[in-house]
């Protein structure tokens, strides 16, 4: 994936902002760390593994 050099930045259409946020690496990282913290605090191995599974699927937008 490469940046589209002819795309004006930042996007202004709500759908672009929303979809961009959905695959933004900072959002993915922060959401994952927040969920992991909750899962560890709750003492649930299932929740920890589930967070890892969702994260690895979600973050695949950023495969090399």
């Amino acid at each position, binding site marked *: *994936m*490469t*940046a*589209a*050099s*002819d*795309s004006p*930045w930042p*996007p202004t259409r709500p759908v*672009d902002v929303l*979809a*961009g946020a*959905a*695959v*933004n*690496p*900072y959002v*993915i*990282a922060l959401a*994952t*760390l927040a969920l*992991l913290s909750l*899962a*560890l605090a709750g*003492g*649930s*191995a*299932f929740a*920890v*593994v*589930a*967070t*890892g*599974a*969702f*994260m*690895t*699927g*979600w*973050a*695949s*937008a*950023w*495969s*090399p």
Partner: protein
Amino acid sequence: MTGSINPAVSRVRYGRFAGDVVSFATGVLLTAALTFGVIGLLSSAVVALIGRWLWSAMVVAVAVWVSARDAYPRVPVPYRNVQVPEWIKHTFRPTETAFLYGAHLGVGFLTRFTFGTHMTFMLALPFLGSMSEIVSVLLLFAAGKCVVIVAAVAGRDYDEMERRLGYRLRWRSTGVALLRLTSVATSAAIVFSILTNL
């Protein structure tokens, strides 16, 4: 995957595309389950022949290995360094293409390494308490991949899709580095949770 399972490419209506997303998720789920089946058999054999401690040690060793890859891209890992073959989308209809892409990606090891969390969560699955928990985890894996596809829907015109994907997947090297660190932290948390029987 985003440029192959997309209404701007397949020219299908949005309703039909929703079906394609379900087809993709089904493909991911089926082959991820198959991969787990192989890992589950291996895990059972190791536990039965030697002991649970060895499987735990193997999970720790592999988690360290793939986390090293997260940190340093030259560490070799058993993933094929290729994408899903292009001929699939030129040969099959959109719903079939979506299923086959999902099936290819669901295995995990047939395409490029993304993050070490994949290997770690797969190897940790045998530690979960029930089959319903395992299926739930695999469903979440498939759902995570679907977020990527749905977020790439950007109209039904190819040029518009490319332009708007530029907005959405605008490359952020610092963000990707943060994702790699997050992957290492997630693998560590998974290992901690299974070793301490959370």
